[in-house]
């Protein structure tokens, strides 16, 4: 039984046998979507007829998701106390945004980091204020620190000394050096949506939110939560695509062209539809098909993403999973910066790792 199939057809969940649950629970847990699966299962009137052991696991994970929710909401208030004054409105990204805006994508989502978007000219002030209030950059190599600040789309993560919560302060959705896309805070601020129920907070416009999620998943090299991130996209697209967001689809396509993120959008719609059965209007599908890569690349991408977006569990891996993940990791670095920066960076990282290992061996 494949987990994406259950997400696509939740009616199957209550008909699983215990033997099938024996695979589904570990797959869902290691993909970070156990509580999301629970939410889907509970929508079925037959939920209470499920065997008790798998139900226990799903409900336990829902408690964890509820805890993350409480923690994030608490943390948002603390963050507002510290930087609300200098920012006026705090723009939330990713999980914290879904939660604060009460989007379906926040259901059963477990996460610890809070991502905020800050105009570049306020970065210094925001960082100093957060540091004064107890958030610290962890132990970080001076080279990495400089690297983050000079080339990346965020400053090094800040972790609160007492509560151990982490804030990622972004000033752009893509690295400064990225080959594609130009989406700095300046491009986004004019279109943010203030949250009437949470004064002082805002989230990105629906199309920007989708493009951010797509870029994050398809241009970066970490897929430990690949399936979870794909379900985020599915939930965002289904929500904005259906519910009273008139003109969402054309705006999404238009915006992707405007900021140069057409390729991630193409992949997002392709794999959401293929793996999770997301309903994408036929004219949108046709319109984004011009963003597809040449077919040999597309075949390779299909091959690689079929593995990267599968549940992060040994029952869903084959001999090609590791090479595919490695290729996507290399690709993400290639997308992140031009070769004249990337090559010295990787050489530096590689030699430093050796130094680290030899220090460990002699210790």
């Amino acid at each position, binding site marked *: 039984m494949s987990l994406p199939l259950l997400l696509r057809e939740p009616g199957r969940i209550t008909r699983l046998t215990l033997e099938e649950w024996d695979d589904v629970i*570990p797959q869902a847990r290691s993909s970070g979507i156990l509580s999301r699966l629970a939410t889907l299962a509970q929508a079925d009137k037959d939920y209470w007829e499920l065997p008790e*052991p798998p139900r*226990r696991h799903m*409900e336990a994970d829902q*408690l964890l998701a509820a805890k993350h929710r409480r923690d994030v909401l608490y943390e948002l208030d603390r963050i507002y106390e510290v930087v609300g004054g200098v920012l006026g409105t705090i723009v939330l990204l990713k999980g914290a945004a879904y939660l604060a805006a009460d989007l379906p994508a926040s259901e059963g989502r477990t996460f610890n980091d809070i991502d905020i978007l800050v105009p570049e000219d306020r970065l210094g002030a925001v960082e100093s204020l957060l540091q004064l209030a107890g958030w610290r950059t962890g132990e970080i190599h001076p080279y990495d620190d400089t690297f983050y600040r000079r080339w990346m789309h965020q400053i090094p993560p800040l972790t609160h000394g007492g509560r151990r919560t982490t804030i990622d302060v972004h000033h752009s959705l893509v690295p400064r050096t990225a080959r594609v896309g130009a989406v700095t805070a300046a491009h986004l601020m004019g279109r943010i949506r203030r949250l009437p129920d949470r004064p002082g907070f805002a989230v990105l416009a629906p199309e920007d939110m989708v493009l951010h999620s797509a870029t994050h998943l398809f241009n970066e090299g970490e897929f430990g939560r690949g399936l979870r991130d794909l379900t985020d996209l599915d939930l965002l697209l289904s929500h904005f695509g259906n519910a009273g967001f008139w003109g969402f689809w054309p705006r999404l396509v238009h915006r992707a062209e405007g900021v140069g993120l057409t390729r991630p959008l193409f992949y997002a719609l392709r794999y959401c539809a293929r793996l999770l059965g997301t309903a994408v209007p036929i004219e949108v599908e046709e319109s984004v098909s011009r963003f597809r890569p040449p077919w040999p690349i597309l075949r390779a991408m299909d091959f690689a993403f079929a593995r990267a977006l599968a549940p992060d569990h040994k029952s869903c891996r084959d001999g090609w999973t590791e090479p595919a993940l490695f290729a996507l990791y290399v690709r993400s670095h290639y997308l992140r910066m031009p070769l004249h920066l990337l090559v010295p960076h990787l050489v530096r990282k590689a030699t430093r790792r050796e130094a680290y290992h030899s220090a460990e061996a002699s210790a």
Partner: protein
Amino acid sequence: MAHLFLRTGPFTVHVETSCEEVIDGVTLLYDPACVLRRPAFCDYHVQIWQPPLRRHFRPQAVFLFDGHAPFLPGPRRHASPMLEWGMNWVIATTAHQFLIVHAAVVERNGLALVLPAPPGSGKSTLCAGLVFRGWRLLSDELALLAPGTGQIIPLVRPISLKNESIDVIRRFAPGATIGPATMGSTKGTIALVKPPSASIAAIDEPATPRWIAFPRFQSGAALELTPRSKARTFVELGESAMNYNILGETGFNVMSDLIERCDIGDFVYSNLDEAVSFFTRIADEAIPFAEAGS
């Protein structure tokens, strides 16, 4: 590759391993009634693996949960205790249907004595002492409190002894089955003790908490039980509960209920025989802590 299916109270754990130490450990320390044929559903799938490059030179073992390693690999001679530590970690980080308190639990006449304590306090020694003198083992490491009933659910697994307490228990209970002592972990020398079969037979029977004693072994000290404040206990137990924050209001209610219904004290001892008969007398004669003294 061996597949073992262990019944540990409310959980069924599938252990996949290539380490003989683990297979031998399970064979020695688990009652045959707790080693199952492959069930339809296992709560947890774990592995103890040997990293291939270190098979001969200082061999290592690593614990995996759903294929991910929560800890760094350790020396292979610790493979058997590593399985127990790993299972504790897995349960403590996922089984939020219970409030999980870091404590040993033993039972007599249907009532449970909870022994919360930091490592090195003599908690496991006292726990082993009691269960080899007629008390029933519910858990050596994790007290599983069921919201709703407030009862403690047995999680019967080998008791983990450290350093001098290994010999203390060898002398105290010569009939006990004790696994090989493995040296030189960060926790010192470790040996696992097989739970008595009476505890295994009652593995499905919860117990009602009645006493909480914070034990401290202190060489040469006279036995002493000092009642302690419920408020202070609440704070300390809240800190030693693995998932108190995750359970939120439920956690608060279960904890209040536990503290409300228990007699609570600090317990200092140096002689295990004395300590065991002391608690047995309290249980059999229903003596309140305030009158038990020393």
